[in-house]
């Protein structure tokens, strides 16, 4: 698969949406939706993606797009997919449709966790994509359940003191057909995981690393570069869980220095003046990788 071939597929979004310069969210969305040839129906949580692509009376969406509230896109898609099944059974619709959710980490790790858990447990046929930028970015970078140890946010200005949730592992514990953690680098990983997810019936989950330009206080050309450094430093492990089996999809035998990932981000600037905090973050990342390696041996 060549990257240039992907661009020959029509985008689900028309140009002119209002994301920040350099924001990777719409790149993630376009990548994911190009991984299926079936028509899609998209539901989103309140957040950056929603407010930058559907400002009345305009819309960027070339596919059906539904926004209800912050925490409930998994329930919204449950309703849409249930309606689809009911109408199909009654002969009022027959073509295949894929159902996809896009939501940020605030809507997924925090407010919507119960909704997502229940939608998976009920077994709806949908793909849930979390774009994880590690804080409530649409409201101005407040701490979420995805905020990493030590990161400065507007509600943890001195640095987050707790560990972030390992959401992908929480979701994998539902024993669903497919759950994976991915990133825009290396780019085929996201595309292939989305393809894999679309090929399976039932609930699927992708957690996608999504650097935030204003929230992380980084330059506008850094989103893909930081995705790369996050993967290469083991900060963001790339793996999938298919039918209960863990597999690392991008092995990192010789991790690069974490500092290379942290340095361009002002949210971590204070760690460079506090060796204890830096060591604590490194330890958390090391433990996360070890835990993952152990899981792959099961």
């Amino acid at each position: 698969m060549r990257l240039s071939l992907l661009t020959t597929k029509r985008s689900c979004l028309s140009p002119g949406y209002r994301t920040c310069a350099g924001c990777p969210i719409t790149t993630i969305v376009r990548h994911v939706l190009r991984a299926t040839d079936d028509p899609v129906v998209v539901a989103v949580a309140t957040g950056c993606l929603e407010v930058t692509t559907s400002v009345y009376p305009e819309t960027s969406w070339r596919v059906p797009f539904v926004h209800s509230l912050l925490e409930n896109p998994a329930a919204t898609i449950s309703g849409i997919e249930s309606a689809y099944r009911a109408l199909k059974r009654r002969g009022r619709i027959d073509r295949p449709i894929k159902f996809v959710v896009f939501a940020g980490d605030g809507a997924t790790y925090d407010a919507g966790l119960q909704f997502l858990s229940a939608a998976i447990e009920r077994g709806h046929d949908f793909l849930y994509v979390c774009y994880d930028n590690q804080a409530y970015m649409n409201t101005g970078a407040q701490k979420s359940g995805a905020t990493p140890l030590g990161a400065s946010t507007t509600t943890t200005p001195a640095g987050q003191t707790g560990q972030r949730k390992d959401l992908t592992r929480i979701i994998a514990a539902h024993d669903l057909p497919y759950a994976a953690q991915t990133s825009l680098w290396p780019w085929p990983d996201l595309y292939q995981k989305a393809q894999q997810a679309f090929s399976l019936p039932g609930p699927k989950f992708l957690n996608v690393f999504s650097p935030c330009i204003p929230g992380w206080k980084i330059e506008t050309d850094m989103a893909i570069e930081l995705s790369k450094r996050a993967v290469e430093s083991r900060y963001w492990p790339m793996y999938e869980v298919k039918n209960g089996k863990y597999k690392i999809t991008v092995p990192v035998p010789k991790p690069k220095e974490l500092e290379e990932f942290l340095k361009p981000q002002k949210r971590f600037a204070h760690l460079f003046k506090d060796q204890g905090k830096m060591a604590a973050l490194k330890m958390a990342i090391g433990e996360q990788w070890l835990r993952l390696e152990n899981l792959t041996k099961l």
Partner: protein
Amino acid sequence: MKTATRTILTGSQAVAEAIRQSAVDVVPVYPITPQTQMIEAVSALAARGRFSGEIVRAETEHAVMSIAVGASIAGARVITASASQGIALMWEVLGVAAGLRLPIIMAVGNRAISSPLNIHCDHSDSMGTRDLGWIQVGCENVQEVYDHMLLATKVAEDRDIQLPAMVLLDGFVTTHSLENLVTLADDIVKGFIGERFVEKSALDVDHPSTWGPLVLPEHYMDFRIDQHETLEKVKAKFLEAGEQLAALTGREYPLFELYEGKKVDRLKETDTVLVFLNSTAGTAKEAVDVLRRSGQRVALLKPILFRPFPYNEIREALAGVRRVIVYDRSMAYGAQAPLVSEIRNALYGLNPAPEVISRIYGLGGKDVTVEEIVRSV
């Protein structure tokens, strides 16, 4: 061919029967006393192969209404039921349903709101949602529950309305009481309600639509004014659909009922009017009979359509009476109770103006007898 069946059902069973006959596509459910029997009854129908819609067993009432919103956007006919804390928990989504103009139907087994915990009847739950843009239709008895479920569906789905509707029945008093009623044959119900009119659907992938956009101050008020004006149109649609239903059932469907020893179109021999919602209106009719036998010129006004509220029609009906006693089964702490507040609004500026007296009764299921109502007049 049999067009109607005389039967005995609880209020909850009547809701389930209406759901079955309305060919509902999606029923999201979550248990809460005293509504649980409704969703159990629908589930039992499905288990016996008599209901072919999707029952979605949600994890909270917030999810119930969120699922309802999604399914309705996808073009499905959606009905659910809830009560009390369930209504409180889904409050946020109720506004979404109305704002997105989705004709979702919800039966409410009216119950008190915590704290303290109480599972019995009062009207605090639906009153807490009265300004969110839903149609609200009250029910005195099981027959009205059945009829109003069909009527609410017809009005909510009208192409000029497209708004959600609550059908309000008193927790335990009506949800759990077995009463006589007459149900219509399946094909007659089908003929009355028809298929849901769907202007746009999220499943129409060839004509993609965007639902729930961000609307900035320039346009936001336009949506709200449109919503209000549409809800106001419900009065006429309710009467119009009511006439069609009356032709099938032989019963009448006014915006409110007047009782002067018998049902009347206008009050003639009345000095004092009692105003009661839902089941207690039935008890109050007995009280009116007792009082009229002792020579007192007392009547009852039972609002049926609570949202939109028929201010002008009620003002006309009450013009000329000396005294109106309004009985609220919920409170507005630090303010006038909801029903009396509406009645005072309706009567404002009348000359001569009736004296309006406010009474609160029956909170948290406290029983109300005919004698107590007689003594309160």
